[in-house]
């Protein structure tokens, strides 16, 4: 397929339809409005259904119902809206309902601002819902990757029967880039719908989606099953990251999404001045990649995000050296420039060594 120019939000919606998504329920919020707009226009053309819900809360609970009915279903929102969806995401986790949630981050807290941000790293990876759980979180760094990751997300969601979040900063949604839409997601084993989905139970059998385990021992047993079986499998099979100019690196940035692109410019500029520096770019934020942080040649890790350092503890844990992790970021909808990172590195590390 030839490349086409698409705005990130529209590319995400298109990728979802190509991945078999036929149901979308959402609520307007900037900067993701082109996602529901695209679905409202295109889903009916492929026999799908778009519902503009009365709230984000209702939207995620419609997703809960459609996902429980075995459909490929998606919702999208931005930061305050994702906060509202957290309850429903927790229900999808407990009920083991596959669905894809796109989070197009803007500055917070509260109503915050509508400009791009990454200040929902913790909301996504630590969960804003209650209870012990994880959901896979994919963080694309380009419109192309947003397309590819949305397609993968539907496979991951169905395979492990879990909500999957595609976490983007608002810029990914707003920018246009050339994309190829023919990415074939990795085929994964899917549990048969007859074993769990509403409306698919074989005659004489009943499929139920249970959320309340009044029996505490059983509730614990289920939690342990998630943590002993489901989550280790996801950690093993689904973790992704990119290493950029890391072969001989002595210093490394750690960054994802748009910030990682900005930092790539800084890496190239610093390399041109002779500094051996690279970038580790986690593509999944949960599971967080551990392997690249086993690199003992790295003297300092420099975390770069559009927030106040939400990923720092993950990097500290992964590299095991709290004192060697530095942070520079902008917040509240401000986008850092490559120059800011170059200056930060020169100030903190003295430039080329």
């Amino acid at each position: 397929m030839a490349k086409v120019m698409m705005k990130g939000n529209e590319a995400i919606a298109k990728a979802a339809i190509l991945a078999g998504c036929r149901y979308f329920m959402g609520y307007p919020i900037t900067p993701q409005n082109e996602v529901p707009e695209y679905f409202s226009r295109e889903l009916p053309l492929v026999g799908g259904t778009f519902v503009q819900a009365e709230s984000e809360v209702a939207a995620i609970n419609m997703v809960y119902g459609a996902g429980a009915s075995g459909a490929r279903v998606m919702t999208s929102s931005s930061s305050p809206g994702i906060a509202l969806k957290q309850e429903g995401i927790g229900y999808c986790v407990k009920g083991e309902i596959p669905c894809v949630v796109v989070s197009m981050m803007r500055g917070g807290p509260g109503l915050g601002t509508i400009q791009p941000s990454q200040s929902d790293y913790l909301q996504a990876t630590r969960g804003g819902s209650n209870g012990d759980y994880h959901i896979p979180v994919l963080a694309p760094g380009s419109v192309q990757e947003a397309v590819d990751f949305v397609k993968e997300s539907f496979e991951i969601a169905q395979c492990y029967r879990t909500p999957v979040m595609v976490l983007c900063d608002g810029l990914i949604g707003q920018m246009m880039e050339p994309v190829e839409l023919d990415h074939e997601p990795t085929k994964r084993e899917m549990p048969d719908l007859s074993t769990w989905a509403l409306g698919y139970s074989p005659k004489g059998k009943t499929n139920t989606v249970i959320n309340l385990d009044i029996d505490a021992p059983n509730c614990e047993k289920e939690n342990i099953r998630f943590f002993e079986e489901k989550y280790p499998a996801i950690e093993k099979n689904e973790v992704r990251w990119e290493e950029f100019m890391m072969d001989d690196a002595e210093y490394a940035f750690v960054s994802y999404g748009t910030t990682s692109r900005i930092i790539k410019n800084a890496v190239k500029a610093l390399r041109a001045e002779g500094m051996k520096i690279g970038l580790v770019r986690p593509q999944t934020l949960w599971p967080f990649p551990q392997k690249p942080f086993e690199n003992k040649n790295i003297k300092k890790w420099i975390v770069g995000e559009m927030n106040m350092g939400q990923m720092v503890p993950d990097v500290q844990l992964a590299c095991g050296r709290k004192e060697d992790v530095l942070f520079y970021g902008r917040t509240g909808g401000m986008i850092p420039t490559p120059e800011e990172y170059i200056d930060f590195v020169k100030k903190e590390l003295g430039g080329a060594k």
Partner: protein
Amino acid sequence: MSTIVYQKPEGLTDVRMHYCPGCGHGIVHRLIAECISELGETENTIICAPVGCAVFIPKYFTYDSIQCAHGRAPATATGIKRVHPDKLVLTYQGDGDLASIGTAEIIHAAARGEKFTTIFINNGIYGMTGGQMAPTTLPGMRSTTSQAGRDVRINGNPIRVCEMLATLDGPAYIERVAVDSPAHVIATKKAIKKALTMQQAKKGFTFVEVVSSCPTNWGLSATKAMEFVRDSMIPYYPLGVFKDMEKEGE
């Protein structure tokens, strides 16, 4: 020779319901099962359970079922019915679930004319959490959060859901019934069957409010509680059909 005049309907499991003695939930559960059985939909039904006493619905019915977040059953049922337009889809909700935390969901599902059926149990109190004031608690009625009786100057007034939903164009059928007497139980069954039949015909949103009792949290015996339904609840929540698209069409 002998013929069975009445026995427990198919659609209900053999699991003993956890409801308190004399609770109306059991009566309404049975009526739902009877109607669905008579309509030949036992193998074709999906029921959405609320948060509240009826949360264990999946144990009591043989239908596919899902436990919904508090108040969100109409949203979840929307998702299900959109995927399975030919299945019979029901939500079963109490007054805290439907008329308090889930007000937005029920109004908008009704306004969209979602083609499922909601059975709304109005007993004027939060049962499962132990007798707190509900949006439908009557003025002057005591609860654990209105211990001197509901004072409308402080707690506001109760909500009459049927009347409110009847202002919308989306619903195809809205009726309020009660289960305080055998005659009213017969009427309740008729209303549920009518709603489900209209769902089968894909007419639109169908809604049956059942005025029921909560003997335990009302502090009354089961029979006295039914008298309270008759003497106090029904005068405030008048029974009747509030919307019938088939009648309007005539």
